């Protein structure tokens, strides 16, 4: 069963209609205790963010396999900040650019765009699940710490 501690929004961004990997990601993550809100294919930045706001998800998992990822993901972090999700985890994976480019260069470009983690299409999904849980747990811890500090200040 999905563990309520871990909730993520999943989808394929832009005009990309590749559904197979999307269905498989969901089928692997859910039995590992991650609650997946799956938006399926052809999801806009705002649809990802709307779903994250509505469900209180801690992470957005963006897939793109058709090469337009570079265009479709531009400004995603900024849009999250505008919509009050500055701290949300952003993962992206797939074939993110047109043509065969060094993965390290692609990873650097997407990290520069504000994505926390960048994955190849061949990544082991169980590994992704572990990273996701660890990243979410760390975030929750940090947020709780902040919260306590605030409470202390109020108390003081």
């Amino acid at each position, binding site marked *: 069963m999905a563990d309520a501690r871990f909730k993520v929004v999943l989808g394929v961004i*832009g*005009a*990309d*209609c*590749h*559904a*197979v990997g*999307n*269905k*498989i990601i969901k*089928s*692997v993550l859910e039995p590992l205790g991650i609650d997946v809100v799956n938006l*399926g*294919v*052809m999801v806009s930045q705002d649809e990802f963010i709307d779903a994250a706001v509505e469900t209180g998800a801690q992470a957005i998992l963006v897939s793109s*396999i*058709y*090469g*337009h990822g*570079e*265009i479709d993901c531009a400004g995603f972090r900024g849009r999250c900040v505008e919509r009050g999700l500055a701290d949300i985890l952003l993962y992206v994976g797939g*074939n993110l*650019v*047109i*043509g*065969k480019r060094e993965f390290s260069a692609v990873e650097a470009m997407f990290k520069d765009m504000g994505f926390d983690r960048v994955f190849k*299409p*061949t990544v082991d999904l169980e590994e992704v699940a572990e990273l996701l849980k660890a990243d979410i747990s760390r975030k929750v811890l940090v947020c709780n710490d902040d919260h306590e500090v605030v409470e202390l200040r109020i108390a003081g």
Partner: protein
Amino acid sequence: MTEPSSHEIENRKLDRGTYEHERDTVLQTWHTGKDVDFAKGVRRHHEMPDSKKFSVALANAEAAHKTLLQPRAGVALIREQIQLLNDLSPHCDVLPTTVDAYTRHNRYEEAQAGIDRSRAAGTSLLNGFPPVNHGVEGCERLVDNVSKPIQVRHGTPDARLMAEITLASGFSSFEGGGISYNIPYSKNVPLARSIRHWQYCDRLVGRYEEEGVSINREPFGPLTGTLVPPFVSHAVALIEGLLALEQGVKCITLGYGQAGNLSQDVAAIRSLRQLGHHYFREFGHDDYALSTVFHQWMGGFPEIEARAYSVIALGAAAAKFGGATKIIVKTPHEASGVPTMEANRAGLQATEQMINMIGDQGYLETDEIAQEMALIEREVHAVMDKVIDLGQGDIARGAVRAFEAGVMDIPFAPASVNAGRLTPVRDNNGAIRVFDQGSIPLPADVIAFHKEKIAERAAAEGRDASFKMVVDDVRAISASKLIGRPN
């Protein structure tokens, strides 16, 4: 046009008035539509040499039992597209122009941004060529600057404007169909709507035929390209073929995507041709030219290029043994997305070497191939009978109702109108079998056969068949296997 429902859609030739009225609206959906001139398009086709006509290339290949090779290729800008096609041209028989994904969803403004950004970046940032944005003049420039027949390849539920622009510009083949370019390619497009939009495209091709211009139409065979049992894609191809013929299409190419088991693939492409003639004649058509196209593996590829060549070569062998008229060729870059020209050329050369060697051998006949053919034919007839029944004789209405009822069901498709209950899995020889039939009306003994074949594999692997097995199969070829066995 009002939204057609399953009650209103019908497989009947659009009358001239309906087509012309709709055309006025279609041509206004993007500013380049105003430059479409049908009469001028007809003249262009008449003036084109036979060497640039798709229908001629296909007829010659059929007559000589040759297999045409065609790559996929599309970049954002016209000059670069001309360069790419001319670099590939010596290594293939017919040319493609693969359309970008924004255009496929009629998102011409985003396509324009992609064109602009590609110009600024000095490299294509689009995954294909945007023909609507480039308009008639731009597409004409492309056609005029290549020396072989050229086809539009895409994945567009509403391709009416694209068809008007590209056919008027001299493209002589148009891929797609109301089912095959909806269910695997969109999320929320009602099936009756996409079928209706493709009747328009087919009617346009029919109008060219009436003017003595033969345009080839090719329903998209592989669908989701992921463990699709042959009977599933055959049923779609046959229905789209019938819908096209009704609108006046005369030159039709039915397609199939490599599944991986040689006997099943050879049987599939052979049975597709036979079934095509069977259903076309049954529905009263006798004036058509039928050919077949085999798509090399459409699922995930191995990252290592040497391994990818083996997937490509196995597809080439199956296509040639099966007697396909044309092969759509993959590249060693498939795992990473859009290939370079060099990778594309390498895929074509690997394919050519294999088809030459298979071509020197005689007709391959084995018990396995004969059994698979008999099985596919029974399965197709079972589905088609039900589709015809649901439509009360009308194949368009029947198709819409069949998807609503799950009688037709495409594995792993994104469309919400698709039931998604049919679940395939490989058997112990790697052939694709039906693990869960959903609502597909297959005969009891056929289902029993599938179950037996799957049980054989489960026993060999010492595990029960499950969705885990299906997922293992989906990832198997990119992990250098055919069957997703446990480690």
